[in-house]
């Protein structure tokens, strides 16, 4: 059989058109992949987003969405000797995404107590709930329609002592940079991630330095930022 191959302009256009339609149909089919399961335990829930290790509300991830950087104040309660550690923790998250995700600065004039004031802040707490004396720190976030509006980080200065880079004595102390890195993860919307490579593991042992976000942290963050 004789095969005649002549690529004139018209043929090329038809070919490109056909390939384009094929690709478009592929995209349409991929676009309908909602994470939905139907079973007796989950009858009607559909259309919810993959959590991606983010807090979810009504089936949608909660974050600062398109608003980074998140501005966070170091309040006057925090000893200034720890500023550099806190700033380094912010830089680590920023370097993960190659963009400024968190912007931290000291404001000694800010006198509010922690609460829903739409001011994100870090507080050094000399008092702590007796029942929760093993809690090293705590981050509360509030949102409106899945967009974060407020984040407060409380550091338990009653039951823990901290060390920073260069300190000789670390026995029984918590690495503040690692701790703040974890809390900043909550401040941008992440939940606890129980993978050894994650900086979002629930508990940080004393003397342990855990300041390198793992692949799971990076991929989670990429779902929202």
């Amino acid at each position, binding site marked *: *059989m004789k*095969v*005649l*191959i*002549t*690529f004139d302009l*018209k*043929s090329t256009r*038809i*070919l490109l*058109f*056909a390939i384009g*339609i*094929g690709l478009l*149909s*592929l995209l*349409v*089919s991929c676009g*309908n992949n*909602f994470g*939905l399961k*139907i079973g*007796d*335990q*989950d*009858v*009607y*829930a*559909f*259309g*919810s987003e993959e959590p991606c290790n983010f*807090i979810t*509300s009504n*089936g949608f991830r*909660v974050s600062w969405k398109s608003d980074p950087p998140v501005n966070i104040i170091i309040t006057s309660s925090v000893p200034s000797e720890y500023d550099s550690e806190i700033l380094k923790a912010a830089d680590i998250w920023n370097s993960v995404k190659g963009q400024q995700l968190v912007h931290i600065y000291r404001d000694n004039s800010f006198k509010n107590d*922690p*609460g829903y004031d739409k001011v994100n802040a870090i507080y050094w*707490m000399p*008092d*702590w*709930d007796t*029942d*929760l004396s093993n809690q090293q720190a*705590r*981050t*509360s*976030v*509030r*949102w*409106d329609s899945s967009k974060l509006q407020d984040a407060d980080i*409380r550091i338990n200065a009653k039951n823990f002592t901290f060390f920073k880079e260069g300190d000789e004595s670390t026995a029984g102390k918590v690495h503040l940079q690692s701790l703040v890195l974890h809390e900043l993860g*909550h401040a941008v919307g*992440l*939940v*606890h991630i129980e993978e050894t490579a994650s900086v979002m593991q*629930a508990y940080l042992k004393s003397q342990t330095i855990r300041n390198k976000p793992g692949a799971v942290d990076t991929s989670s963050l990429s779902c929202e930022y």
Partner: protein
Amino acid sequence: MNIKKMLLIFMLLDFGFIGLVLMTSNSQFKNKRSTASDSNGATQTSDLTEGQKNKWALVETFQFQMTPDWIYFTTDKLQTICDTSTLIELKFSAQNIAIAGVQPSIKHIYSCDEIKKDLSTKTLSTNISDFKKVRTEKVMILVGSELRSSQLYSDEELPNDWRLTDIKISGPSTFTINEFEIEKTLLKHFDFEIISAR
């Protein structure tokens, strides 16, 4: 074979492929939305399994009411549930707030033994004062039930906005009804507001 003919055949196959893809994706989407509302707002349950239909029928009996002092959850099926279960747990979750990535919650766990003492009981009630108190108490043992709080702290205000998010039935027949199922069946959430002084 002329290249133009080849391209025409390729195009026809291409369109056939597109048709197949669209049919498949649409049928999947229809299945996923098997309980979605129709244009009149009525819900369709025709595609549900027998177990799902039973669950749907149960959720349809749920009623939620709040007074200044009490939260009431009512269902005609309360005694029927307790015939095959031991505990009924109502989980109330704070809205628009998370602490360490988790939404604060209060569980009110009722004993079926207590419910079955009075066969006319259709309502589970929660005292608002107890609801506020459990923020600091963490666990409160009441007559025939107990309240437990999670992620609520004495140095943080009790959140204002709450929702009944889960109803867990435990025992030989264990299942959970979540907020999405309540919304799809009743087209509303069981939301309420607690005004608290610290």
